[in-house]
């Protein structure tokens, strides 16, 4: 029996570069560039750079 085919998108975690441990969870294409965005971090109460984490969704 054929195995499950890999999905087109994957769930990724965007971690704050302010080292607060706060993160956002989004989707991106499996074949695509790593996500990075400037988003609000409530721990620091300011907009900071969020970078996709290598660890994944969990």
């Amino acid at each position: 029996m054929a195995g499950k085919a890999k999905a087109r998108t994957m769930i990724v975690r965007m971690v704050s570069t302010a080292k607060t441990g706060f993160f956002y969870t989004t989707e991106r294409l499996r074949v695509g560039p790593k996500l990075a965005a400037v988003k609000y971090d409530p721990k620091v109460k300011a907009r900071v750079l969020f970078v996709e984490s290598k660890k994944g969704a969990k």
Partner: protein
Amino acid sequence: MAALQAVKQFRLREVAPRLKSASSSEAAGLVKIPNPFLPHRNPESGRWAPPKYSLRLQAELIKHAQASGTLHLLPPGPKAGPRELERLKLSAQAVPSLVAGLARSERAQDADAASPAAQIARQAGEGELWNAPVEWEGVPHETAADGVVRLYAKRKRMFKGHKWERTKQKREEERKVAMEHMQTNIERFRSTYRRKLPNPLTVPRTTSYTKLPF
């Protein structure tokens, strides 16, 4: 005042009924009352009855007595033995302004500002049973440690704090360092990230594994 009222209630509950019966039977000398702060052994069954007042209540009563200057009315117990009571009385005497302040708030209508002790003495003269001198039965077990609250007296180590409390300073410093250059990081990111994203208008390069190049 609430503190004096608490001590008075304690005395009315423990001392007054015994004194009433004693005065009616005309017993000589001080009335003997079993100490409600200590456990008592039943001579017939040989079992120990626990103290009438829990350790928490005892500590609260001592605090109220210290606030109202009525430490001489409380019996000695595991929280404050005879030595500890003497020490508390001495420390209370060292703060006459506090005692005077308490008296002033208590008897505002009175012309002369009398201390709570003097007020109690006056009430004794008026025939109050609750503040009459009493002999307490039972010897409290003397502890080596000082003070009413002795949480760490028998423990080797104090509570060192939660993990998050211990690491809080370090984490805050790390965050501060990270935020110092955040603005420059954001500007650099904004100027470069568009190049990294693929142009949605371009045709995607297909890689075929079946078509041979020759």
